[in-house]
């Protein structure tokens, strides 16, 4: 066991963790933050994406002890006071969510992208989410949600090809 101290969504935590515990399991099982999902546990699907000092990581590939002294952001930090963030609103509006299992990871990847590139092109959006598999949507509605939230949809509020 090692004592770690970190912030998650701005809140400070101190915990003893086993050295082999992944950040994913630490978040889900020790802190009860079950919004972050496990899709593969092997760094291959992106469902477990969180921000680690502002950059995306697959939390199944990071050890909790590595997060000592770091700032982690998860999907639970995205909505403030029960109010959806603009990004979440856009996902909802564009029906970028079907089964919802990839969604938390997808939103975290998109969040990082928008920090870096406030007005991403379609190619940049695809690059931003290339590590996140979605088996349901075909990605199109996700791309549209991101275009919309960055103020780039030609006809705001309408689906491009409905």
């Amino acid at each position, binding site marked *: 066991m090692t004592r770690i101290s970190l912030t998650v969504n701005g809140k400070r935590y101190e915990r003893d963790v086993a050295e082999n515990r992944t950040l994913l399991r630490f978040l889900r099982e020790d802190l009860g933050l079950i919004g972050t999902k496990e899709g593969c546990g092997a760094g*291959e699907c992106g469902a477990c994406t969180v921000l680690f000092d502002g950059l995306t990581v697959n939390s199944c590939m990071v050890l909790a002890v590595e997060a000592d002294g770091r700032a982690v952001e998860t999907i639970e930090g995205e909505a403030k006071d029960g109010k*959806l963030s603009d990004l979440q609103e856009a*996902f909802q*509006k564009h*029906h970028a969510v*079907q089964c919802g*299992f990839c969604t938390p990871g997808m939103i975290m990847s998109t969040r990082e992208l928008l920090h870096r590139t406030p007005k991403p092109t379609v190619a940049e959006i695809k690059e931003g989410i290339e590590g*996140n598999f979605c*088996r349901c949507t075909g990605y*199109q509605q996700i791309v549209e949600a991101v275009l919309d939230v960055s103020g780039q949809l030609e006809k705001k509020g309408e689906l491009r090809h409905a």
Partner: protein
Amino acid sequence: MKTIPEAALNVMGRTAYIDDLPEPRNLLHSAVKLSGSARGRMTRIDAARALALHPSVRVITWKDIPGENQLGFTVADEPLLPEREWEYWGQPLVLCLAETKGLARRAAELVVVEGDALAPTFDPREAAAKGDFILPPRTQRSGDPAAAFARAAYVVSGRADSGGQEHVYLETQGAIAEPRDGDRIFIISGTQGPAVVQRAAARVLGLPMNKVEVETRRLGGGFGGKEDQATTWGCLAALGARLSGRPVKLCLDRKTDMRATGKRHPYSSDWKIAADAEGRLLAFEADYYQNSGCSCDLSAAIISRTLFHAVGAYRIPNVRVTGFLCRTNLPSFTAFRGFGAPQGIFVMEAALDALARRMGIDPVELRRRNLLEEGDITHYGMPMTRVRARESFDSLLEKTRWRELRAEVDSFNASHALEKRGLAVVPNCFGVSFTKLQMNQGGALVHVYQDGSVLVSTGAIEMGQQVSRKIARVTACTLGIPIERVAIERTTTLTVANTVPTAASTGSDINGMAALAACEEIRGRLVRRAAELVGGPAAGLSIEDGRVVRGREDTGLSWDDLVLKTYESRVDLSAHGFYATPGLFYDMEAEKGSPFAYHVYGAALVEVRLDVLRGLYAVERALIVHDVGRSLDRAVDLGQIEGAFAQGLGWALLEELAFGADGRLLSDTLSTYKLPDAHFLPARLEVEMMRETDNPRAVLNSKAIGEPPLVYGIAGYFALLDALRSARPDGPGMYDLPLTPEKALDYLTGDRPEYGREKAAKGDTPC
């Protein structure tokens, strides 16, 4: 667009999937031991080392099963845990329980199962040659194919193969089971069919069904993979709970899920097609060797759908098609969106492609000449009505300016040696209803509470297709209230019994209709009460937008007041609704009937760009014209079309299931099994919903949407083949899906001549 709370929970990451649920006190975790070879006779199970690991470890084998060790309902060939033989690499043999997930997994590794190797079969044609079928072959026929072949101007034959496909629902399979009040058992199962799990668990535990409750909240994707094959995990968890007297959780890790569960059926097929001098199709024959895997599962219903879709969207007067369910030592292949139809349609499109090439005409023109027309009778005897094959095909050609596009691509290809473009158009005609007739039924339970809010329970499982939203819409429309007043309850065997799985694209059709029936009954009672309250006859009164109106006039009575007053007058505000799809019949002896409520139409164009030196390609554009009837929710339907197309395209071009020579699944991770990512989808993807028309055979004139659009992926295959042929005009036909970059490169370099050779050897005209 209206928002519903559930979508908000989703984007907040607050939807609870099985692994997210608070764990019950005293929970035991579990893991399965998988077989390490494709076929063997068990001689010994040694659990000593596993048991020594930790006092909480318990090892459960088939001997511990209190009831019947059998999950197969169509054919009794699916033991929950094998008794004598294991039949594929990755089959669950033993269940281990322990205090933690880690301990359970380690225990499973330590269990030793010994046995004698038996000779396995992996190739469906080899199984067929040995006569090893799960059920006898089935044949559908119409007209006189032999005579038609004899007089035809063109006869072409060949072979077509299509590979399996992993579902890769992002949430892996899982279940939690809890013993309750003495001998009852409660199972939370990640299944598309709670009643299937209930029935199987009751059988395995030796309990009546009224002692087994199964609940399903929401799935992180299903796609057919959790229609029948969630049952194993639900039953194993229930078995563990029953034997230990404690709650047991079984959630598979991705690798175990990929190894142990079934996938889309691979097919290997022979076909023969004939046309007259004008290119009118005269006859078609095919033999489908379905690789069923080691047990029946849903294979019989799936081969039905293949046969029903054998000639796709075309009119062919003389047909003979035969399906073989070939037993092999691979996981039991199962339902996957499309359910055998895409496999059949691929064979048909391959035959047309070869025929067009032989005749020297544009394959698009050949397809167009032979589309189904109103009043045509299918080879299984169903008269076709409200046919929209030509309407969709022609509107697609018009939108794409087909002639100009073809000419432009041809001239591009003529002037570019290292880069080629390819085009294909594929029509769609997809039958809606379960191919197993008895399954076309569903129930709903609707409660109106005193405050006017409404709760609906049905057998429908929410897995991202927004069936809840559609049922809420049907309820709101029927009762005449805002959709916000409606909530959809989780699915459990307590509220609605004997439900069928949410599958075959029928989730909204069947459950929506059942909800509608219940709502109509309640509405009738409410309107009668309203007539007493406002005076005048009940006829002419209705409820709209939460108000009681006569004609256009507001009567001053609100929904809320009406509900409360109806309750006070001691009238039942609940109803159970039932729906059985009318007009379906099928004679299995004659292989004739009307097995579908209606058909869904459409067409797709796909364009690809090929790098001739590397065999790499990109899908540049897709245009889909699709028939939605009157859409219940256009945004939802759009998402279904795009998502299904993505899966179809993945199946056609990218996703390759790989088994080793020993039957071991090699593509058992997401790094070895290639899924479509954001880049794979065409840069230009346009979906056009056809002019809305009534569909009297489904709820509120809508049409099923889940599966049909998957067929459009097949256009991706033929677009790439088109590009490959421009690069190598002398190249043979190659109908071996998925057309991965590796196969494309082999084709370009001529390293893959087996298709040409094989056909030449067969005697018929090689294509």
